[in-house]
């Protein structure tokens, strides 16, 4: 690992921690946090490096900082019913990050990366939810996946839009992330 990887990953973790605390109330009552944007943007901008960013983010939570959504923190959150989704962030950072790097950061690769990371996050999330709460898989999916699919696809689309703006702005600012 190079110094740059270490520092970019650390800053990605810090940005994710901050964005997870910004919640926009939706008409339905479900708070809309910006956490997932940080996950997607990390993958789009940093590729595989975002894996270490997400690992750091999870460890920040594990050492007790209230960095997860709704200011939650502690190892209990990671081991608890919804921890699988968080572990999914790290794994998708690795796999979707690889896809993005392999396709040379082009749009098609990024769209594929969104789909793959959502699949990873849902799978790990559902398995842990079902295991910790002793629920059958079908019930875990009905509670933990189905209601969120439309929102997550929307968030993925917005993240793609943001990434294009960000890349332009970063090159104007003279910051080279992958070079």
């Amino acid at each position: 690992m190079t110094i740059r990887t270490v520092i970019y990953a650390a800053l990605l973790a810090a940005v994710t921690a901050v964005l997870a605390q910004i919640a926009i109330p939706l008409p339905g009552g479900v708070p809309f946090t910006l956490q997932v944007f940080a996950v997607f943007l990390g993958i789009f901008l940093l590729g595989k490096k975002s894996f270490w960013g997400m690992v750091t983010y999870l460890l920040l939570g594990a050492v007790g900082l209230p960095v997860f959504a709704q200011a939650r923190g502690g190892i209990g959150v990671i081991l608890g019913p919804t921890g699988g989704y968080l572990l999914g962030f790290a794994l998708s950072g690795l796999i979707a990050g690889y896809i993005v790097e392999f396709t040379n950061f082009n749009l098609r690769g990024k769209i594929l990366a969104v789909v793959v990371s959502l699949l990873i996050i849902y799978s790990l999330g559902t398995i842990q939810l079902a295991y910790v709460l002793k629920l059958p898989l079908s019930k875990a999916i009905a509670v933990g996946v189905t209601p969120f699919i439309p929102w997550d696809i929307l968030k993925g689309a917005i993240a793609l839009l943001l990434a294009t703006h960000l890349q332009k702005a970063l090159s104007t600012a003279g910051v080279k992330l992958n070079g």
Partner: protein
Amino acid sequence: MINVNTIGQYIPGNSLIHRLDPRTKFFTLLVAVFLVFFLDNLVHLGFLLFGVILVTFLAGIKPKMFWQALKPVVFILVLALILQLFFTPGEKLITIGPFKITREGLINSGIVFLRLVVMLLSAYLLTATTSPTELTHGLESLLKPFGRFGLPYGEIALMLTIALRFIPTLTEEAERLIKAQESRGADFYTRGLSKKAQMMLPLIIPLFINAFKRADELAVAMEARGYRIGAPRGKLKPLKFTAKDYLFLFLNLLIAMLFVILKLWGGFPAKF
């Protein structure tokens, strides 16, 4: 507003549990989590809960703080208990309208409840009695043996330290950005979805740009001062095992063994 306090759940103190080496406490948590999923008997899990409560008193943590540990999962816990209670097939006990409560449902919901409470309390105990810095050092030291398999334990600790350092800075920056946008008439709280998406643009983009600019500057500064990844480094406060750590570790193994024997033997209210 946004608030990410960087001492986290830590409650400063000088109890026996506070003074244990962070590695001892990590190991204790591992044992507790193993037992939580290994045991599937209400009475055994009850014993475990008693043990965790005992440690909580040793740590001088007030019972009202338990809420702090359980708050994150209350909603999902209640949901799971309802699902378990009413939808587990088995021997009928009570019928309320169209719903049936079964013996199996009752036992299952009890197990799920005890498991989550024990797990969350023990995880909370670790972070309540150990500061994030201590935990980072403990983690680094525990991961060290995996270094030979290619695990970059030193870099992981460094990433944690840098992230800890930058969270307050970025929090402040995000607040400033929100205020700046609001003073220009941005409304983060109402209107339609597409408007909300537009609102996020002038918040997320500058936040990311600033973060990566700072990262760039820090990287240049560290390289210029000759920072080398993986170079041997000393600690300001080295971790040290003392007699009480060895005693605690021994008790851990003893308790874990007792529980394993209890389960394999199958006795002592085996009905639950």
